[in-house]
Every structure is written in structure tokens, then in C-alpha cells.
């Protein structure tokens, strides 16, 4: 009986590892601290074009990537 319990415990404890192995790894940012931030021009919610270089020499930029609109965060 002890062995059966032990086996069940072992099986259960290895489950999360098996599950995790199935998930693709989260992407790691290729832009690092100390790098120049790649420039871009994108359209905002009001249809205005916004470029990162507009703020050079003027302001710091907090560039916040979010997953989906209408979700938290």
C-alpha cells in the first residue's frame, strides 16, 4: 500500500513538469538595457501617427507593451 501511494505521489508531482514542457517558452526581449530603442511609427487610437524619434532630446518614453485591449493591466 505504501508503494502504491508513493507511486501515485511521484506521478502527481511529475505532472506539472510534463504540462510545462508542453507550453512554448515566453518570448525573451531582444532589446536589452543599454541598447538604442528601435524606432517605429505607429497609429494611435485617434488616427495620429506617432514615432518614437519625436521624443528624442525632449522626453523619456515609457513604452508599455500590452497583450490585448479590453483586458486588465
Amino acid at each position, binding site marked *: 500500500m505504501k508503494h502504491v501511494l508513493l507511486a501515485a505521489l511521484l506521478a502527481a508531482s511529475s505532472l506539472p513538469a510534463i504540462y510545462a514542457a508542453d*507550453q*512554448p517558452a*515566453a*518570448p*525573451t*526581449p*531582444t*532589446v*536589452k*538595457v*543599454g*541598447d*538604442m*530603442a*528601435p*524606432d*517605429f511609427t*505607429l*497609429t*494611435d*487610437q*485617434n*488616427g*495620429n501617427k*506617432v514615432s*518614437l*524619434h519625436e*521624443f*528624442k*532630446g*525632449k*522626453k*523619456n*518614453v*515609457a*513604452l*508599455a*507593451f*500590452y*497583450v*490585448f*485591449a*479590453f483586458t*486588465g*493591466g
Partner: protein
Amino acid sequence: MQAFQQNLTKLEAADTQVLGVSMDSRFSNQAWAQQIGVTFPLLSDWGGDVTKEYGLYNPQYKAARRATFVVDKDGKVTDIKLDKEAVDPTKTVEACQARKLNR
């Protein structure tokens, strides 16, 4: 993004422009900005070119990983926060305030 809106005064006082970026369409962003009262730009990276360039594209969700970069006035990245630390902008606010003091 709501949390960034709540901290907008602090960030602006630290000479910081907030830019939200996602792979949503501009029209999703427009509706969402109105719903939650976001006044800073929410940029549409439709197709994900910028998201991919920053190494944040998650193929599982076909969307960006949650990340906040602080870019200084010279265009250099000085701080990166990921996931939960990117959702709560407290540490980003502190990084921007520290930059302001250093200048």
C-alpha cells in the same frame, strides 16, 4: 493601461511620455481608450512588426508579452520590466523619477 493612466501625473512630472503598444487594431484601441479613459497614445502594431522587433511576440497568444521599456532622451533603453512588474507601473515610475533626478 489603467494603472499607467492613474500614474500619468507622476510620469509626466518625471518628463516621461507614456506610449501603450499592442497588436490590436486602432479601432479596438479607440473603443477601449474611451471606455477606460486613457488619454495617452495607444499604438496599434497591427501585424506585430514592432512587437517582433522588440522580441516580445508570443506565438501562443499571437500577441505581445507584457513588457515596459523606459527609453531615455537619447533614445537608449534604461529599464525593462516584464509581466507582473510591467502591469504595475510603480517600478517604472521610480525608474523615470530617478532619471529625472540624474539630469
